[in-house]
């Protein structure tokens, strides 16, 4: 029997699931190799679970979604969380560090109509996640490799080295050292192939922190370039804010942490 795949959406921009439809060369072959049992963005055919693989985009921001993600887990063999929303709470997790009632008033005339939790949290805070693909958005190649591995019954493997290493391997001139531009490449997990440095732009961390990240060393370098602590904080805390905050908190006091105290930490 073909493996049954489901694609779920929580709070997100749809970009990560669009990456699947953007696999133009592989999509029809994929449609033959697996049964797409639930993928609302692509088909109105809806098959009940259980599913062999559930691909989950988006973060948890409502009470209803807290329940829905439990059902996804119960009905799924393997759960793959895709993108910064699903793995880190996404850019909408910026509200975790603000007053949500005030946010509602800023955006909506009738805040009482709006149902939302105070936080945006990654899927892994609610259920066991088997595979995580980082990025805002994910890399199409990583997605295909992960699906192929799962279809063949292997555990997918993704690189955890920093963007920096990709620059070195691909002969990309270092934007931080040679051009003096702020770059999070030394502490950001690769997967994009050093996309931003390849066009002369500093990395802004959309794949979240790398395992080996040393925040202190980079913070010192960024200060030397004239960045303020607020600027450094905002640079790290946008696309994968919960992960970078955790990294800074974990490294604080170890001599590897960022020294600016930016308020609450996750």
């Amino acid at each position, binding site marked *: 029997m073909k493996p049954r795949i489901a694609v779920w*959406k929580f*709070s*997100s*921009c*749809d*970009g*990560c*699931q*669009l990456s699947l*439809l*953007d696999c*133009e*060369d592989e*999509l*029809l072959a994929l*449609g033959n190799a697996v049964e*797409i049992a639930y*993928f*609302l*963005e*692509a*088909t*109105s*055919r*809806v098959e009940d679970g259980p599913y062999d693989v559930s691909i989950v985009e988006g973060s948890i*921001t*409502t009470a209803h*979604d807290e329940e829905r993600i439990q059902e996804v887990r119960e009905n799924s063999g393997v759960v793959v969380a895709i993108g910064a929303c699903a793995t880190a709470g*996404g*850019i*909408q997790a*910026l*509200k975790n560090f*603000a007053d*949500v009632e*005030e*946010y*509602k008033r*800023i*955006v*909506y*005339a*009738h805040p009482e*109509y*709006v*149902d939302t939790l105070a936080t*945006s949290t990654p899927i892994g805070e609610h259920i066991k996640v088997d595979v995580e693909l980082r990025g*805002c*958005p994910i890399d199409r190649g990583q997605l295909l490799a992960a699906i192929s591995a799962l279809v063949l019954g292997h555990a997918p493997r993704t690189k955890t080295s920093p963007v920096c290493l990709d620059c070195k391997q691909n002969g990309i001139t270092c934007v931080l050292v040679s051009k003096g531009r702020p770059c999070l490449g030394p502490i950001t997990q690769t997967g*994009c192939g050093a*996309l*931003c440095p390849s*066009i*002369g*732009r500093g990395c*802004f961390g*959309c794949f979240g922190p790398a395992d080996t990240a040393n925040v202190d060393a980079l913070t010192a370098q960024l200060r030397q370039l004239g960045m303020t602590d607020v*600027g450094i904080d*905002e640079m790290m805390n946008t*696309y994968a804010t919960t992960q970078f905050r955790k990294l800074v908190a974990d490294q604080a006091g170890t001599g590897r942490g960022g020294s600016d105290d930016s308020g609450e930490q996750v």
Partner: protein
Amino acid sequence: MSHRTGGRILNVKALARVEGEGALHVAVRDNEVLDAKLQIYEPPRFFEAFLEGRDFREPPDITARICGICPVAYQMSSCTAIESAFGVSVEGQLAELRRLLYCGEWIESHVLHIYMLHAPDFLGYPGAIEMAAEHRDLVQRGLRMKKIGNQLMELVGGRAIHPVNVRIGGFYSSPDPERMREMLPDLRWALDAAQETVDWVNTFSFPAYEGDWEFVSVVQPDRYPIMGDRIRSASGVLDIPVAEFLDHFSEEHVAHSNALHGKWDRGQYVVGPLARFANAQDQLPPGAAAAADRVDLHGEVRNPYKSIIVRAIEVVAAYEEAIRIIEDYVRPTAPAIPVRPRASVGHGVSEAPRGLLYHRYFLKDDGSIDSCDIVPPTAQNQPAIEHDLLHVVEDNLSLSDADLTHLCEQTIRNYDPCISCATHFLEIRRVDV
């Protein structure tokens, strides 16, 4: 879905083949339609709130994350708003590169919608993958056309979803002319395929229905509109500079939705391909103009089901424009023009694939954002969608629940609604704390 005596309720809890999460709710009693709603479930993400206090360089990247299907629209509307606040304007080859990037997005989004989201409605399939079982060549043609749109975005923007190369003032780096010209053979193939697409969708059968709304779009003096600084309605009653947009249009927060409904002081309006076509058909490049003649579409197209043909004509136009821009491309001397922040307000507007997208930023002297407003196209089209639903249900009460529901879903998809976009805004009002 339930069928009750004396009345009917059609409920679709999760709409398929739209971007984002929405639901359909229709209530009928004694042959009278009591209620027709497109409900938006998509939880709010509060972009306008967390942009406050951020640096003026950030909106192109941050607002792109509102929508993975039309990130370039957000990037372009935010860039032009902030550039106008600082009193600069991007011209020449840099403006052409922006248009090229935007053509890539129109192609990618329109072809996705035509082939994968909307055509299955007309031909009776649940989706494109199922459609491919019987029409493999057609679906493959669509996928290749879409891929070429994505490649344009990768070439100019560095990445197809949330491009990384866009900045206030232009780009981080300008693409290499040699690499651009390598795309020409594929683009010429795609232009032919786009012409065939127009003829293909023109063979569909279109439910009879005409909407009575005004068409509102951006206009450009010398081009089919993508980025411009005036807004016009097809009847001519409205012709304003972008800075006056909020004097005429507002958004209303309705209880059943996390999105705001667009309102115009003069009545019902729609944005999107039908509106652009009504305003600027005579500015289409020659191949697209010929296609419109061939299928005999002119001026105000009032049957919203025919929007799929107009989208196909716009795809022809986007490939033609892409070819023209690449053939004429000379690498600009610098990838961006300099900007200097000042306390000011700026308005920006551009034509997302699904219609007019407006941004306004209030900026401080140090370049930080004091507040901002974003009015996305789907919020503006939502009242028209509900209006259409009401009439379509009224006209088709003899259909079975299943057929009527299907017709309602198809009606919603006429607008290619992007629910992810619609949900995140509304009027940003200053909070007194």
